[in-house]
């Protein structure tokens, strides 16, 4: 190895090139979202002072700036408003086609719409009005240096998938 070596070329981790969030509790204050996700729950924060539900979750209420927030569940099912498939110029981390849908979570949901990647979904099968549901999956872990050891921070994220008819 050269005397002044390049960390990237030796496989060292940098969050600047990580497409997934840094979910570990050592690095953010909304890690509960990811813990809930691991249990299959799709959640966000609600203000206990004024009742405002905000997505994505945060540490203050964007309405009244209270920091007294609670976690609430969002619907895990919705209906497709529009779906698109991307075949060209797909980032290296995905196999084409990359399928995404703009989803209506229903008029009773405090968060009306969500953009989501569609998984477990064959090309050209999904259409407007189809029912879709939350799907949680594992994403690559990354190292965290603690005082005496380096641990692997396991991670999950979500997409949506078609509800089987």
């Amino acid at each position, binding site marked *: 190895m050269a005397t002044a070596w390049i960390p990237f070329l030796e496989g060292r981790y940098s969050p600047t090139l990580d497409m997934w969030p840094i979910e570990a509790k050592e690095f953010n204050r909304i890690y509960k979202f990811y813990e809930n996700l691991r249990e299959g729950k799709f959640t966000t924060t609600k203000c206990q002072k004024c009742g405002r539900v905000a*997505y994505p979750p945060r540490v203050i209420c964007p309405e009244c700036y209270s920091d007294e927030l609670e976690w609430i569940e969002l619907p895990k099912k919705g209906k497709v408003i529009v779906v698109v498939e*991307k*075949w*060209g110029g797909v980032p290296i981390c995905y196999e084409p086609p990359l399928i*995404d849908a703009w989803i209506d979570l229903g008029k009773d949901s405090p968060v009306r719409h*969500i953009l989501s990647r569609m998984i477990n979904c064959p090309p050209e099968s999904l259409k407007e009005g189809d029912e879709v549901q939350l799907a949680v999956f594992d994403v690559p872990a990354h190292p965290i240096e603690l005082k005496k050891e380096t641990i692997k921070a396991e991670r999950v*994220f979500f997409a949506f998938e078609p509800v089987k008819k």
Partner: protein
Amino acid sequence: MAGRRACIVGGGMCKWGVREASYIDMVQEAAKACLEDVPGLKPTNIDGLLFSSTFVGRRSVQANTAPVVAERLGLKPTSICARVDVLCAGGSTGILLAKGLVESGMADVVMVVGCEKLYTPERWQVQYDEIAAIDHDWDAPQGIGPPPLWFAMIAKEHMKHYGTKREQLGMVSVINYGYGYTNPKGHFQRKLTMEDVLNATEIAAPLGLYDCCPLTDGSAAVIIASEEKAKELSDRPLVYIRGGAQVSLHSVSANWPGEHLGDWPHLRLAAKKAYANAKISPKDVDVAQVHDCFSISEIVEVEELGFCKKGEGGLFVESGQTKLGGAIPTNTDGGLLSCGHPFGATGIRQAIEILKQLQGRATNQVNGAAIGITHNLSGSCVEHTIVIYGREPRK
């Protein structure tokens, strides 16, 4: 007594495309072209620098960029020396900030220079890095770093709600490439036929290759000065920065502010504020530079900017209203579709074209143009920035 007024005095850009050059090389080329447009102006007479870039620092290693740029350009700023990052609107933002600094009396002559070096030694990073330019933790994991997916949804929604046709999207590309054919500094110099557009590689239906602007290396620079300095520096007609506005109502796609994706209330609000600020109405606009990152974008923009009725953007373009001789010739230097889109430099390229139009020296000249407008959206349509220029100052 009128207060101090800011003018755009001159501008220039380097050759845009896939460049065998670093960001700091291109900045120097653009600054040289800019000062050649303002003979007599010396680097040491420029008292402020605003540098606009989003990806310097990510695709090349340099943080705290402004002093590096100032030094390489031989500037010794005494009023401002700072960097601006508003992705696609960074250049226009720099111009709005320079206007404020000049009008406040803090600065007299400011260079606004934008640059992106997007192509990296390994090409995978060119698309992958886009995940940093949208709301990273929430939207990037859903795959919309590269924006075509999102704008394909917008196109489908616009077609559904307003009956916009595929060929109307295609006309935007045909017209803008037609303008860009005459611009040697742009990324492409080729004419397109509707057949070329409709038969192109599909990127995300309904958008094909020519409905999407390319990723481009490039830099552009302008000089913003007080009216008094502008008179000293140039014999050309004065061009005033009459006004502008910048609106941001959301970041994560889930918080989209419209009734549907073809409805852009944030742009309507920006337009209303900018027109009021510049004391004009849309019917006063003679020439426009709008953010045609995708063909569909221009169609929605001509509607929300008030050039035509909501829902009639496709018809507006199809009927030739954005061509020379039309109601409002638009993207007369080729726009993003043909010139390419080095994010932080794009608003500055647009400003240069409007400057030339208002001084009667553009290649695709709009006869007697007296009021021009530039518009940028940023990222996945999360911010709208408008600058209005005029031969006459705001009264």
